[in-house]
């Protein structure tokens, strides 16, 4: 079985509002899967269905090949976007309690907590109350509690909110190392830069429907628009430009006076670059030649805009 989670035509209604409409997903094992979408798209509802907090009206969800059932809760770790801890409870007690709720024995939970507290260098917080800790510190505890029972599937909803850049980086490393150790991870966010860094696969949810999914690199390839960035050095820029304009579509041009270089963005009919290179090779020094790869953010915005236009 190569998928940790398969959702099949999942539909969920709240009264007259449709939160999810025929959403199907396949989340490969041992990967980081980005669940993207604007606020209110239905990501949280989907995540809650996976966590069995709420149930689909139609469709089914399979976890590791089996129809999702209550026992799977112990195999899933969930860091919700709306998260917090008991303010007046001590860190250690609280972590033990939450771990036991996930089915760990007290002794085992204690052992693992020791390990994680040392790993994140927060050992001396054990007897502190949450209300004595800063928001970032509490978030670290929350992260530990989420991963402590070593679930097969981890779901992080906006995991980096509330962290300063240094701690965000620590958590990112932890997430990557968990993935190295074989955990599958669903990563829900609308912060695209972290998607680029972490996700192998993505699904884009918009207005209750999945509008795009697949391997991020494949999607990027599909979204390439054959635009190339070219840096040139010539004796006569104007002459070159005049010649080029007849044969190629120049989107933008500017002259870098420091590097003494002409920077162009050129739209080609296909991603066949041999013609233009041959053309330029005889007329100028080519300092830079690079195909523009769309960022996840570009894809996100473009897809949603297209979808909105389709709907109108």
């Amino acid at each position: 079985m190569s998928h940790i989670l398969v959702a099949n035509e999942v539909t969920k209604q709240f009264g007259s509002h449709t939160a999810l409409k025929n959403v199907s997903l396949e989340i490969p094992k041992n990967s980081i899967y980005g669940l993207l979408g604007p606020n209110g798209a239905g990501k949280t509802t989907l995540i809650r269905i996976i966590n069995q907090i709420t149930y689909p009206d139609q469709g089914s969800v399979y976890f590791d090949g089996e129809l999702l059932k209550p026992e799977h809760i112990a195999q899933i770790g969930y860091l919700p976007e709306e998260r917090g801890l008991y303010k007046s409870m001590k860190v250690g007690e609280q972590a033990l309690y939450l771990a036991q709720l996930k089915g760990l024995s007290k002794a085992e939970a204690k052992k693992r907590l020791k390990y994680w507290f040392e790993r994140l260098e927060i050992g001396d917080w054990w007897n502190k109350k949450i209300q004595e800790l800063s928001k970032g510190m509490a978030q670290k505890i929350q992260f530990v509690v989420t991963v402590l029972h070593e679930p097969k599937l981890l779901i992080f909803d906006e995991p980096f909110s509330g962290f300063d850049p240094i701690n965000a980086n620590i958590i990112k490393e932890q997430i990557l190392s968990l993935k190295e150790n074989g955990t599958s991870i669903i990563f829900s966010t609308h912060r695209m830069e972290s998607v680029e860094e972490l996700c192998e696969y993505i699904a884009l949810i918009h207005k209750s429907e999945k509008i795009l999914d697949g391997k991020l690199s494949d999607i990027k390839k599909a979204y390439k628009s054959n635009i190339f960035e070219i840096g040139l050095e010539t004796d006569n820029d104007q002459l070159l430009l005049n010649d080029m304009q007849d044969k190629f579509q120049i989107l933008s041009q500017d002259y870098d006076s420091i590097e003494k270089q002409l920077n162009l963005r050129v739209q080609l009919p296909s991603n066949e670059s041999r013609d233009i290179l041959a053309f330029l090779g005889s007329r100028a020094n080519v300092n830079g030649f690079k195909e523009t790869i769309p960022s996840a953010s570009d894809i996100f915005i473009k897809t949603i805009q297209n979808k909105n236009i389709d709907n109108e």
Partner: protein
Amino acid sequence: MNKLPLIIKREYIAKVRNKSFVVMTFLSPFLMVGMILLIAYLTQLNDTEKKVIGVLNESGYFANEFVTSEATSYINFKDISLAKAKDSTVNLGFYGLIYLPNESNLEQVAQRAFFYSKDAPSASVLDKLESSITGRLRQERLRELGMSPKEYAEMDRGYNINIETFDGLQNIKGINEIKAIIGGAFGYLIMMFIIIYGGFVMRSVIEEKTSRIIEVIISSVKPFHLMMGKIIGTSLAGITQFGIWIVSGAILLFIGLAIFDIDPASLTKGSGVAPGMANTTNVDVDALTQNIQLYAQEIFEIPIFAMLFFFIVYFVLGYLIYSSIYAAIGAAVDNETDTQQFIFPVILPLMLAIYVGFFSVFSNPNGPIAVAFSLFPLTSPIVMLMRLPWGIGEGGVPVWQLITSIAILIATFIGIVWVAAKIYRVGILMYGKKPSYKELYKWLKYS
């Protein structure tokens, strides 16, 4: 894999360790006992304060009536005018002045007698004065009729009708009041517990919402388990608190009474009997002892073990029903100020039950109103307990009513917990504006 015990344990410990809970638990008995002792002390103080009353007696009567006693001193003015006597009374700081004018006969004197005082005189002072005068008047009237006081006492002896139930059990007057007090105490206890601990459950739910831990927890346990764990854990904390109160309160009261040397009987002494009555009514000592025996017998006949058993049954069911409503309210709102609108309709039936109990059950424990309210599930835990001291079966609560009321209560419990759990499940994940009743109804239909 049942996580309910874990949740119960956490809720219990969280509640019991809470500072205000600890303070309340250990301070309340001191406050309560302190208050009782203070009241007792003040009552005694009031009693022992000696009042000085001036007497201006221009009549030829009442020579022996106004003599200094333990509680009151009488100072006789002689051969001065009323105006002067009044002045002297004020100047000397006496409590008041009794004026008996010179009239042709005793009746006339009594008619024209006045009591002057700075403020309105206290009831006990007036009682004393009036009974003194009444006593003298009666003597005089008896003399005119040619009857000796002994004969009069004989004539005045009280009469109580013999009362018996149809199956021949002897009944006595006044026992109903005692039963009412016992039933009322049980009912009141249930109401207080529900309001206080229901409130705790509600606040605990709100706390989980505002601290945003709720979603973390319900990704591990079912919301229903969390709700029930919370209700049970909190009620166990409440039982602990009551236990500590009862034990420590009893000990403290005992110690306090010993230290201050206060007679416990003085606390329970009714104020309804006016002083002076005792010496006019002839008290048959034998009859009294016999009555006490009868009362004791009747009290022993209150089915105390059955009552305790049903107290627990009604208490548990009533508490579960109400605290699930409280939990649902807590889940529906974001903060405590928003709860008012929802709490009022919850407290209403409890208040109603207490009032129905006091005004209807005690006068007619098996009347139609008492029966109706002891079957209605939101009031039955209180009203039925108020009826129970009159016994179960013949003469008391018919067995079918008891069974029906418990059955209705259980059915309601299942229904209410089902509804509350639905509202709870949706509500705990809803943030933002306070929902309307209409929205709450919609939540019931979410799956």
